[in-house]
């Protein structure tokens, strides 16, 4: 109990610092853009875990939902106020994910993964074809927004995704999700509406990805299907979440932050080395640290307190 209080105070202090930060460094928009970028990856990873963490279904569709958000923003940005545009991006992604999820989530294991993989490419190719043959122009110009606005929007989305993940983890809905991950049949027999729970949680996770896409869209001045539906937005969140660990809320945050910073440091000068390090880290993490950085941290904490209970005890509880 006491430990819980201490960590929540820590979290609140950290968040306050984050929100107040721009007031101190308002002269440098670089830092603000950097933090927005980190938050983008954090939200993508955290929202990926909402669905894929407890159920074990590996979705490679984040890029599809991110891209839908980007395009909603690009199309509606001129006519609607910003918060509405961002919300529309999220809702569009939710609807897409809910429909796709209802149709496909009965696919088992790897078949679902392959499906989501194809989905991103399908949408990207369709949008591209549409632009070439119907609108006649590939890509769109965007009137960029103030980095500070993007930053605050990302902070709000970040807080929202944390809150929603936390709530889901403590609700009956979250219990149902974990039950599905353990055994789908057993969950169905215990009265869980398996298809609905899966489709809704897939939709919720897509909602945040759509919000992120719709927000980050304003950082660019030009978008086309290749940038909006880039497979990197599918791969990165998955790998970051696994690197950080998925048992606790902070796992994906750490994983995403570390790699977003590394990307910032390396990507302009040594882009290939960055991705190379990324790949190697992935292999090492999967081979040797199955619960990610989080597993290591939890082990330290347990050792420090002299507790005998295993780390595995906490797995899945968020």
């Amino acid at each position: 109990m006491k430990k819980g209080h201490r960590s929540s105070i820590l979290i609140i202090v950290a968040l306050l610092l984050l929100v107040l930060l721009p007031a101190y460094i308002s002269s440098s928009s670089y830092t603000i853009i950097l933090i927005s970028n980190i938050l983008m990856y954090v939200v993508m990873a955290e929202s990926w875990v909402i669905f894929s963490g407890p159920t074990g279904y590996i979705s490679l569709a984040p890029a599809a939902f991110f891209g839908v958000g980007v395009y909603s923003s690009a199309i509606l940005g001129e006519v609607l106020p910003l918060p509405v545009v961002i919300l529309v991006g999220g809702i569009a992604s939710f609807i897409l994910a809910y429909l796709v999820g209802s149709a496909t989530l009965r696919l088992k294991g790897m078949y679902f993964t392959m499906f989501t993989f194809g989905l991103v490419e399908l949408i990207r190719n369709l949008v591209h074809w549409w632009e070439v043959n119907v609108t006649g122009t590939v890509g769109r110009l965007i009137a960029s927004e103030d980095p500070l606005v993007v930053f605050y929007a990302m902070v709000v989305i970040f807080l929202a995704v944390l809150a929603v993940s936390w709530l889901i983890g403590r609700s009956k809905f979250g219990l149902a999700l974990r039950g599905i991950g353990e055994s789908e049949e057993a969950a169905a027999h215990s009265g869980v509406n398996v298809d609905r729970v899966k489709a809704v949680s897939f939709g919720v996770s897509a909602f945040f990805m759509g919000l992120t896409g719709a927000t980050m869209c304003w950082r660019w001045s030009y978008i086309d299907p290749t940038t909006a539906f880039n497979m990197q937005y599918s791969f990165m969140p998955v790998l970051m979440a696994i690197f950080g660990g998925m048992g606790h809320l902070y796992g994906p945050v750490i994983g995403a932050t570390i790699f977003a910073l590394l990307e910032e440091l390396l990507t302009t000068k040594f882009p290939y080395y960055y991705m190379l390090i990324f790949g190697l880290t992935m292999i090492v993490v999967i081979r040797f640290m199955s619960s990610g950085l989080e597993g290591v941290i939890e082990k330290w904490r347990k050792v420090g307190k002299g507790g005998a209970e295993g780390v595995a005890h906490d797995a899945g509880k968020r």
Partner: protein
Amino acid sequence: MILVRILDIVIGGLLTGGIFALIAVGFGLQYGVARVLNIAHGEFIMLGAFCAWTLFTKAGITPLVSMIICAPFFFAIGYVIYRILYNPLRSSSASPAVFEGNSMLASFGLLFVIQNVALLIWGAPVKGYTYLAFPVNVLGAVFSANRIVTLVVSVILGSAFYAFLMSTRTGKAIRAAAQDPDAAELMGVRISRVLALCFGLGAMMAALGGLLLSMTSIMLAPVMGMQYTLIAIIVVVLGGLGNIKGSFIGGVILGLVGYIVSSVQPGLSMVAYYVIFLFLLLVKPSGLLGK
């Protein structure tokens, strides 16, 4: 005239489908038997293509000879990767389903490693070479000679592999491992060796597929692999997992569809692939020939 047009489409589809099939057979071995959904499959195709380019433009070795040089090399790479990465992962994973998830994620890592090593070696700009590019008249339809060579070689490789699988002891072991790895092990099959063999063979076929592809005057770039991974996935699902004959038929069907669609509405062939793929996954995930 109509007849020539149809012939043109059928042969064109066959020529594309032959390579698709070869690529898919390799992918099917890795997933159907070794249980690794190898997202990095396309990277081996890319490596094969670049080996052909390097040997041809720097050393003057023709791609058909390069195939003989590269085959054992890529087989060894695949074999070693399985032994040092996937085999330990298999023993440490709690269940086959967990292994499937973990091995797929590890293959992501592999994808990034291979792709970026290739970018460091060859750089990002596209490359290409021409080889056997003179026109050949096939029953009234005209194709370049290199495409016909690729089809002939793919068919030879495919049939050779099929014969190997059906008539040798090792082939039998592979088929047994595909059906039930645990039972195969109890029957005295050295399972980890057989699975490593499958992974190695898969990598080899990918590389050979890449070598053949590079002959057909396509643009080579280190990022080209992903699209072929996708094609391999689609063909394998189309033909049914672990079904060699199915992979060949699936490859040819996909080749035909791609060729027809791109001759009617260029730019939509990728979309057509995905529509078939998504439709099939929803209606009959076990594949056209599946039970």
